[in-house]
């Protein structure tokens, strides 16, 4: 008797859970959750805790140190000064190119060529830049030969070196995302706008741009994250002591040169907060505009 009742209850509990969407299949996310907690959430929390355990001073000593030394707090500005314009430039270059490629019948070859720098990696790009853009490099030689400049341009080991390197390594990623957003827009929307009298400029302004805006915001965030954590190029083709002393250099130095893990963690936390601040701002702006389907509305 009692066994049967228990069994019935068990079945009904199972049904009730299944109705809420929890059953054997849902449990498949458990390994993923455990993994994220063990390798992301826990280290993150540990880092946060560690950042309040400075080698010397009170709980906030690391943060006080960071925000009282220009040598440290200036890195935020230095990083922003690189990452923001680079991300914007990459978006602005990618958008018109993606619109061109969209019209091509055979997009694959050009797309492959344009995303080729993904394979280079930051280190090879840096190495190549030292050669190609250096004072003795082909780039300056050609410009000198054609008389476009009178002295070699200084394009490496300064702000512009890191800037160029970030554009080269960031462009493929930005371009790829934007291209897939652009090609995801239903072409009949453009045709409809054209038959209603919209010329190319108006079609872009009234139809494409508002529909692309959410995708552009996402692309901006993802590209910004990459640019913000710039490290190898800031060291190899930048001016790591001054103009391109970005925040990740400060974090690495604390961790690998001073072995001050609490301080390194504190810098990492500051880095995360400032970076997420920009992302949150962009996403908040995004939610102000439309973000529904980009296909034509269907019944």
């Amino acid at each position, binding site marked *: 008797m009692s066994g049967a009742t228990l069994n019935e209850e068990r079945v009904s509990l199972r049904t009730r859970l299944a109705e809420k969407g929890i059953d054997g299949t849902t449990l498949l996310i458990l390994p993923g959750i455990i993994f994220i907690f063990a390798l992301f959430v826990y280290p993150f929390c540990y880092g946060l805790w560690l950042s309040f355990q400075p080698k010397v001073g009170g709980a906030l000593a690391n943060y006080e140190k960071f925000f009282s030394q220009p040598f440290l707090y200036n890195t935020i500005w230095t990083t922003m000064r690189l990452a923001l314009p680079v991300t914007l430039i990459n978006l602005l270059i990618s958008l018109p190119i993606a619109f061109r490629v969209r019209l091509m019948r055979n997009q694959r070859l050009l797309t492959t060529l344009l995303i080729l720098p993904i394979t280079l990696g930051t280190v090879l790009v840096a190495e190549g830049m030292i050669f190609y853009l250096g004072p003795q490099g082909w780039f300056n030689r050609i410009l000198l030969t054609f008389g476009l400049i009178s002295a070699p341009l200084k394009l490496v080991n300064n702000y512009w070196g890191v800037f160029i390197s970030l554009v080269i390594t960031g462009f493929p990623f930005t371009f790829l995302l934007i291209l897939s957003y652009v090609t995801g827009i239903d072409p009949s929307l453009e045709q409809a706008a054209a038959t*209603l009298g919209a*010329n190319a400029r108006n079609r872009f302004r009234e139809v494409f741009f508002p529909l692309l805006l959410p995708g552009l915001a996402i692309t901006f965030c993802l590209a910004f994250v990459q640019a913000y954590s710039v490290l190898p190029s800031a060291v190899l083709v930048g001016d790591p002591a001054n103009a391109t002393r970005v925040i990740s250099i400060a974090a690495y130095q604390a961790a690998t040169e001073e072995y001050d893990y609490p301080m390194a963690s504190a810098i990492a936390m500051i880095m995360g907060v400032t970076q997420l601040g920009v992302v949150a701002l962009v996403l908040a702006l995004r939610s102000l505009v439309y973000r529904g389907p980009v296909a034509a*509305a269907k019944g």
Partner: protein
Amino acid sequence: MKSPEFNELRLDTIRREFGGFNALKGISLTIKRGEFIALLGPSGCGKTTALNCIAGLLSLSGGKIMLDDRRIDDLRPEERGFGMVFQNYALFPHMSVAKNIGFGLRMRGVAKSEIDRRVAEAVNLVRLQGQEAKLPGQLSGGQQQRVAIARAIVIEPPLVLMDEPLSNLDAKLRLEMRQEIRRIHSSLGSTTIYVTHDQEEALSLADRIVVLREGEIRQVGTPEDLYARPADVGVADFMGYRNRLAGKIVSRDGATARIDIGGGELVGLLQGSFSGDAAVVALRPEDLSTDMTGGGEAGSFGAKVTAIEYRGSEFHGLAMTDQGTELHFSSHHRHGVGERIRLRGMPERTLVFDGAKA
């Protein structure tokens, strides 16, 4: 709202190729102001290509398009000023209903107060009052369809182009919207070109129907013309003449002829010229029956019932002739499967085409 004045739109042997494939093989057609024209044909016949060429969404490979004396085929779509309703409606998902409808007017730089007035008028015409502030995604299929129509007609285009606008709707809504489209057409006095693959839609809506097949015009005529006198076996097939029988002309008497179809005879009307005595007979299921009597064995033939089903007012059956041709027929009796029957066609509705051409 009234349409701007124009007298006729002329397509002059327009051609369109897609990388060696001829989608349109030189189509000529003159459309008069106020007409409702249906372009009818199976998928891949070139009807949507023709419509896109008129709209300017595709450039021509040859020929020209004239609006009265003005050549328009080199104009870009935004310069032609036609209204178009797309198969998937192509409503701008980020704009409200009112914004969608007013889009064409905004592009023309019409004053704000005038836009509001005309949008309100169009909303009334398509009966969407109260939905103006919604986004297209919040509307039902039929409502989206109305927005698409309102958006196309609010600019008072000389020509409205519709590309299978009802194909995404369910049967009941389709019937309702059909009447709606016809009502709007007459109340505006506009000129409409309507692309469809549904003969019933074309028959009920159009003043004239243009049947296209493989990039060529097969027949142009009023719905009554096409229904009663299709130009060839292909058009007949599209107009509901589902039965097709090959045979030989035995004797002629003016326009009527007796055709030997093997195992019996049929009497029908000769269509067009004949190069020999080979013939193809086309018949609708409702005109082929076991019920008609008279004439003894003459004008009838034997067949075996292979299936029968009840259709309310009568029975609809499938029969196999002795030559192995499958036929659709109607009857007031429930015949048994396997039963031998004699089928007789209605002579004035039995069409005989030249067998050498078919």
